[in-house]
């Protein structure tokens, strides 16, 4: 199943982050208390601070948990089996996609990239083993 033949509608904040990751300049939002979060946000979800700054995403993180998805939604039907994983980047965690179902395990060092799904060609945040 494919979505529209054109690019998916833009989501400000989210697509800005993907653009930045593609250019090798990924970032996250940080509050004065050192809580990380992902855009778009006006408020730190952890403490309510409205004093958020963009901080560079660390070059590498660590897989904290992962799963090999074998029964997918229609948007990922042709991608299965694939990995969805949560990686720790210090102040912030990211949930990302790994196309190769054998590429990561807990503790694997990963960077962040932007890929395209096999099924729809939509952009996806990827966790790339280092």
């Amino acid at each position: 199943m494919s979505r529209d033949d054109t690019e998916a509608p833009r989501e400000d904040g989210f697509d800005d982050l993907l653009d930045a990751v593609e250019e090798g300049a990924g970032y996250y939002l940080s509050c004065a208390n050192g809580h990380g979060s992902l855009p778009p946000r006006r408020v730190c979800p952890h403490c309510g601070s409205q004093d958020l700054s963009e901080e560079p995403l660390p070059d590498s993180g660590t897989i904290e948990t992962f799963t090999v998805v074998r029964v997918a939604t229609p948007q990922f039907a042709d991608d299965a089996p694939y990995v969805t994983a949560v990686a720790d980047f210090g102040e912030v965690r990211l949930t990302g996609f790994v196309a190769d179902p054998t590429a990561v395990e807990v503790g694997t060092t990963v960077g962040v990239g932007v890929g395209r799904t096999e099924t729809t060609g939509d952009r996806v945040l990827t966790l790339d083993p280092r």
Partner: protein
Amino acid sequence: MSEVRIAGVGLTPFGRMPDRTGRDLFAEAGLAALDDAGVVPPAVEHLFFGNFMGELAEHQGHQGPLMAEAVGVNAPATRFETACASSGVAVREAVKTVRNGEADVVLVGGMERMTNMGTAGATDGLSIAADDLYEIRAGMTFPAAYALMAQAYFEEFGGSVEDLAHVAVKNHDNALPNEYAQYRNAITVEQALDAPRIADPLGLFDSCPISDGASAAVLVSDEFAEREGLDAPVSITGSGQGGDKLALHDREWLARSPATERAAEMAYDDAGIGPDDVDLAEVHDCFTIAEVLAIEALGFYEDGAGITAARDGETTRDGRLPVNVSGGLKAKGHPVGATGVAQIASLTKLLRGTHPRSSDLDDPRVGLAHNAGGTVASATVHVLEVMDR
């Protein structure tokens, strides 16, 4: 503040009924509850109704009034949506309304139609309980979310897929005589372990089925029950709700459920009891790991100690704390919007002694219902007690 009594409960069988409309499913459950209560539809002063994805399944929004008229109720009707906790939240609002004296008779229920969407469609529909931008777009499914929690649990506390298989075996066994259950077949640990994986480490038998069904309960004030001479021995004596960040990656812990902890604390305080006073529990076991996380967050086990409860026979019917005697979501089925009230219905029957498993229990007096939404960004806990009259 009025005591809230459960006057009657009703269910449809849960299972595969792709051609039945949501309004017909709810009519069956709602009328059964009213009949069980001995209350006529015009007496109902408000409908509190849970449904998660009616827009996707039936192209139907604004379901409150539709469901009220389906059971002959002409009263305000409100739909609640908190993913799989939709009707748990509806129960909580219904309890508040009776307690604060705004109504003497309310109908609470839920319904979900899912199998008409097919497996891929239902998988897609269920996934929207997660964060669309940062989880669904990374390939997260509902089973994948719980698989991430299961893997994180194994990393932090240990445990194995075999431990989880014992949860599935227990809940299938519990459902055997339950005429409303979707699965009434016994399974073995070996079958569970040999089953195909859906989202590693979780396999087919770690997951609840895709289900159609509806549930309902009639809640009344103590004054109304006395005046009308209703036979309503069970009361809801405690209610609590907890919340958390929507996305799993934004939580402090990946293998704990603080929203359940907060809901439980609130419900225990409300009822004036503690976890040790609970005789049996219906907890939200959409996946086997979810039952483990629930019994820990509810205070029955320390963090990391719940994984072996089913294997060790502590949560079986003859154990120290029977859990999911109805079969749970795992075997009874999980029409998501109906589940919270279905747990109330099962517990009510178990406490009144009118459930097919009642004879297996030792005269339980205090029951607990735990309903959770998404990866437990929403949770409700209700305490039910047989009251001395």
